[in-house]
């Protein structure tokens, strides 16, 4: 069930330099699962294409979705100026979420890949180690992972907090093992996590990113290379928006 509607802005706050948390009242919340994303449309008619943004939190009771995003261009700059009472056009929920698997889990987020792991961590329950990577000591959402996960391990590029290095360095340093790993972040990070998972023989899900147009699987703009022939075109291109964004790490070429 995909919905396109005007969502009401409940509130917005800045979490870190260029990182914003936007709370939206939308019926999409009734259908959303962790790992899915929504398309947010600009109110400026010259910016046609929606911005695909991952869902950070789902509150079915209050009918809200929270998205946490980084300002990277004119569209997201516009979103960052939205305030309580404004309305913004949204479409979703889009894509497939993370399958919730039993057992001990490691959730890994890097940079703007951190936000979608929050709702996942909450829904997975207690036995979750969260490994979150940041540029510096601007640790957005870290306090919320402390509440949601059984343990939070932080890695920073500049070494100001936690492990000096990447999330993969942090996983190695702590020799983490689990039944399943979930990861979202830049492609090199996903590659590192996938290799770690393969070495430890742990099932691993990764959430991919690509420039999108339609967001619903029609335009074939956002494909990623897959190891097997894809169902749509029978080549090796899975659609990030429709077949993903969550894939098994063994399914895609990282």
């Amino acid at each position, binding site marked *: 069930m*995909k919905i*396109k509607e005007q969502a009401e802005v409940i509130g917005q706050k800045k979490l870190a330099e260029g990182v914003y948390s936007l709370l939206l009242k939308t019926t999409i919340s009734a259908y959303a699962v962790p790992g899915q994303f929504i398309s947010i*449309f600009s109110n400026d*008619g*010259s*910016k*046609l*294409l*929606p911005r695909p943004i991952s869902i950070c939190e789902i509150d079915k009771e209050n009918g809200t979705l929270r998205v946490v995003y980084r300002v990277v261009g004119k569209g997201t700059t516009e979103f960052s100026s939205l305030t309580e009472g404004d309305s913004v056009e949204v*479409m979703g929920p889009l894509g497939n979420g993370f399958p919730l698997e039993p057992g001990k889990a490691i959730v890994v987020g890097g940079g703007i890949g951190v936000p979608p792991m929050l709702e996942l961590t909450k829904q997975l329950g207690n036995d979750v180690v969260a490994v979150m990577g940041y540029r510096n000591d601007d640790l957005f959402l870290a306090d919320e992972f402390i509440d949601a996960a059984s343990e939070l391990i932080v890695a920073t590029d500049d070494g100001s907090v936690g492990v000096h290095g990447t999330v993969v360095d942090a996983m190695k340093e702590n020799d983490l093992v689990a039944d399943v790993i979930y990861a979202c972040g830049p492609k090199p990070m996903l590659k590192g996590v996938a290799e770690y998972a393969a070495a430890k023989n742990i099932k691993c899900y990764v959430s991919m990113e*690509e*420039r*999108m*147009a*339609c*967001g*619903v*699987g*029609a*335009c*074939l*703009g*956002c*494909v*990623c290379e897959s190891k097997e022939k894809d169902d*749509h*075109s*029978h*080549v*090796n*291109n899975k659609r990030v928006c*429709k077949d993903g964004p969550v894939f098994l790490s063994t399914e895609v070429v990282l």
Partner: protein
Amino acid sequence: MNTKVTIAGVEFQNPIMEASGTFGSGMEYSEFVDLNKLGAVVTKGVANVPWAGNPTPRIAEVSSGMLNAIGLQNPGVEVFCERDLKFLESFKDTRVLVNVCGHSAEEYIEVVDRLASEKRVDMLEINISCPNVKEGGIAFGQDPKAVEEITRLVKAHAKQPIVMKLSPNVTDIKVMAKAAEAGGADAISLINTLTGMKIDVERQNFVLANKTGGMSGPAVHPIAVRMVYECANAVNIPIIGMGGISTWEDAVEMILAGATAVSIGTANFYNPTATTDILQGVINYMERKKIDDINDIIGIVK
């Protein structure tokens, strides 16, 4: 009120279609739109075998438009017939135009021959204008002799009427329209996308992996209207007009300029119900203007 239009003996319940490549075969958008309400579903380009398309990024946004360089990724005609045409079986009220692509004349013919026995295919749109593939596509569409030859060859094999899809990336599109007509085309469709480029000034590199891409969206609409007008006054075969149509006014404008039917492309990406919204807008316009028959306003602006 009559909204029916006829192109090459094929009757369409209304002149609203969607543009090839923006709608798949309708599956993804059938969640938003009742395909039975459309004049036609125009499929994504289909080749003889699966095509992988271009590397990513394939998409870039520009002011009031976008660039794409998909490179005609498609599953090939066999899978298309078994899956996509089968899916379209259940939408009896809409006509089906299959967009055909190829690297060579032989490849176009192979697809056209394979589709000959498919009853669900009402018409073929021959893509000689894709700017994102190195061989075939636009290479056929920029030389009037090549346009005429490929049209004649396809026409000789086709069991359904053929529509030649023209490129705007030419000095004079009328010459290409006349060449298609001379080759025996039943109709022409225009415009395909305009070749564009976007450079990321921070990375100091191309945004698209393919460097160039086809530009579409509202920004190209006035160019498309001008070209439809020029072609309508140059040939005697019907025209399917497209290029940046995002509102009912855009659609009516194209019809007034000389298009018998219109296709909606990029607008689907930001308004999944663009096709039916525009159809309703055209009907409202006809009511308000007391137009009994849509055919009465085709090409009346001279």
